[in-house]
């Protein structure tokens, strides 16, 4: 068992966990923050994407112990975040979600795109999204939503 200290969504958390525990299982089962979803558990679909020290990571293939001493932000931790507020509204208006299962990971990835690549065009947005699978929407609404937020943030 390993000791662990993490700041999750601004809250200081200490725990004693099995070394094999994934960050995703720690977030979901130990912290009961179930907005982070598991779609493949092998690092392809992106549904489990969270921010670690501000960078997107796949929580399903990140061990919880690797997150020791870091700041983790999950979909539940963006209440006062301007880009996330813009993205949520844009996803709503552009029908960028259907079943909602990929949405939390998609939003975290989208937030990374709009904050890191203010000049991204549609091709770049599509390329950046290639690490997140959505089975429902065909991505059209998602891409439109992200482009609209990029435009909003430029002006």
């Amino acid at each position, binding site marked *: 068992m390993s000791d662990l200290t993490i700041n999750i969504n601004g809250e200081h958390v200490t725990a004693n966990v099995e070394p094999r525990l994934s960050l995703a299982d720690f977030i979901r*089962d130990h912290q009961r923050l179930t907005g982070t979803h598991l779609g*493949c558990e092998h690092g392809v679909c992106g549904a489990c994407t969270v921010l670690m020290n501000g960078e997107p990571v796949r929580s399903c293939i990140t061990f919880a112990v690797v997150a020791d001493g870091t700041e983790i932000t999950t979909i539940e931790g963006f209440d006062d975040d301007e880009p996330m507020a813009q993205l949520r509204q844009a996803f709503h208006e552009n*029908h960028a979600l259907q*079943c909602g299962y990929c949405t939390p990971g998609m939003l975290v990835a989208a937030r990374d795109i709009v904050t890191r690549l203010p000049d991204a065009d549609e091709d770049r947005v599509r390329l950046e*999204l290639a690490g997140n699978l959505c089975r429902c929407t065909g991505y059209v609404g998602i891409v439109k939503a992200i482009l609209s937020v990029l435009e909003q943030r430029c002006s």
Partner: protein
Amino acid sequence: MPDGTSEFGIGAKVLRKEDARFLNGHGRYVADIARPKMLEAAIVRSPVAHANNLKVTAPEDSKGRFFTADDLSADCVAPIHVVSKFPGHKGSDYPHLANGKLRFVGEAVAVCLAETRAAAEDMVAATGLTFDALPPAIDMIADAEPGAPKVHDDWEDNVILDSRFEENTDAFKESAVSVTRDFRMNRQAVNPLEGGAVLAEWDAREERLVVHSASQIPHILRNALCECLGLSQNQVHVIAPDVGGGFGYKCVLLPEEIYIPWVAMQVKRPVRWIQDRREHLVTAANAREHHYSVTLHADSDGNFIGIEADIHVDSGAYAVYPHSNILESTMAGRTLHGPYKMSAYKVRSRAVATNKPPIVPYRGVARPGICFAMELAVDALARELGREPCDLREQNLVPVEAMPYTTITGGEFDSGDYPEALRRARGLIDLPAIRARQEAGEDDGRQIGIGFGCYIEMTALQTSAAARAGLAAIPGYEQAQVRLMPDGGLEIGVGVQNHGQGMETTLAQVACEKFGLEIEDVAVRHGDTATSPYSTGTYASRSMVMAGGAISRTCDVLGERIRKIGAHLLQCDLSQTEISSAAVTGPSGSVPFAEISRVWYRNPEELPDSVDPGGVEAVSGFRPEPDNSPFSYATHAAVVAVDPDLGSVEILDYVISEDCGTIVNPMIVDGQIIGGALQGVGTALFEESNYDAEGQPLSSTFADYAMPGSTHLPVLRLDHLVTPSPLTEFGVKGLGEGGAIPPPAAIANAVNDALREYGVEVAETPITPRRVLTAIWKAKQSRLSSVETS
């Protein structure tokens, strides 16, 4: 018909009511629910495709935490057993846990329970299995013949059902031109991002089993639980909470939906099973596998005479509940004609049992395969005749003046202008411009091609048709429960299940259309057998047609009761009242719903003696009369660039011209079509559940199983024809599945058009670079050999 006056009614682009919880991480899927003292389940699964004399050795210290088929038998748990009414259908049990014989890799063998999933998986690893491996039946064509390894020992052969559809075969003699081709659509996994999921517990206070499941069909699941576990309907409560996509995978019963609840009853603790992606890719590799040998006949002018075909559908090891294992083979056999008129028909279709997971009806069911075979045959005929494929289609599609139209096999097309959809798609994609571009050639050495795919979809399967097929779930009148709440808002209960289609919004729009309510004043409840009317659930593009129709009819019943109270309050005659803007209006003024509710609920002393004691809550239902189905249709058109050196295919343009009747919410209609189309692109270009000769799955991760992604369909333009169906409320037609049907046909035709100078015809999905290069190589070889022999 909708008059377009309601801001939130039929036709309005209403933003989705259900979005907020998903955007904020507040969705609640089965895996998000935890119960006190809950145990996690992991499943021991078959490592081989075919074996007998299975013996299972439990891990050490697993007493009370490890269960096999012997435990189910000892408690008299009945297996799944689905037999179709089609004569000659071979039935078999579908054991929840394998009992002596193993019939596919991934078949469930034993359940391991532990405090965590990881610990339960440790138990799986510590379980011993011995068996005598048998040669597997893997090839649906070879293994349909006598002498093949038998999936079910007591069957004569592996043919589950051999159907023949023959009409007016003498007319084939009139044909002047015939083309014969073989087509194959390979096996896929459905892959909703949330896989199967079950959480079950015995509620000792309620004295009933509570099962949370990621299901499209909660009431049908309740039936199955009662049948298999010997419980009464009152002892089972099924809840489908938020469900992370379904696409048909969740409209059949999973064995886990029976044995996990049973195990929970044994251990008297909640038990949760969450399918992981590898489990899904291995055990749910169960869609689409079809093979067609097709001959399309025409006269010298290109008028279709008819079609002959021999179809095989790889239906896997078992029959799923309730839709059986012959839904696809019979649909393919009966409706291969697609949207075309013809006078002769001779199709044999066989459902074949193999040592693979049992087939399930994935979005479009058999139609992606049907459309692929028919539309590629049409293009082959066009090449034979030297005709523009688009023109040949236009000539042979059922024309608008023939509607309603009875097909060669007895189907009833209700309405629509099929040739117009084709013409509009052709105009939008600009066929002449593409032909000119092909003449000019590409600077990068790639070849450009254009392809079309036309389809029809019978939506909202009806009672008579389902009864004829002998399905275990026959839809009747769909019902809705509509209740005026004490504050004047509306609560609607439906038995269909929303898992991404936006029904919490679109079904509410129906009530808004009827009563002029604001959208936020209407709540739609679903996915819970304790609170909703019985329904066969969500599948067959039926929910808007059926549940929407039911809400409309129930609003008529409730509306009259509301008007009666309103007439009393307005001191006028009932006939002088009407409902608009959530109020009853009469000659002297109007009474808002909130006031009606106040009187009914809070001040009943003000009610007249003649009031309906049924109050302000009603249940009623809907079914088309006669019970025929509305047909949706579309033409898809694709422009692709094929690299003849790399074999890669890029979609340059994609156009859809479709008709789903009256559009309830244009935003959601577009979303359903686009999402379906990308799944169709997956079928066309990427997705394949491969097996080796031993029946071992080779596509068990997202690294081996390629899913369509954000870069694969960058351009897509939609165009809507609107021909209201005469059969339904508001003229709506089903829509959910159609987008996924024609992309394999349109894209394959475009690839073949691109490579026409090479003499190449791809005839198998997915059209991977390897398959394209192999086709080019074979065409070269055949040209070389023909040069040598001449």
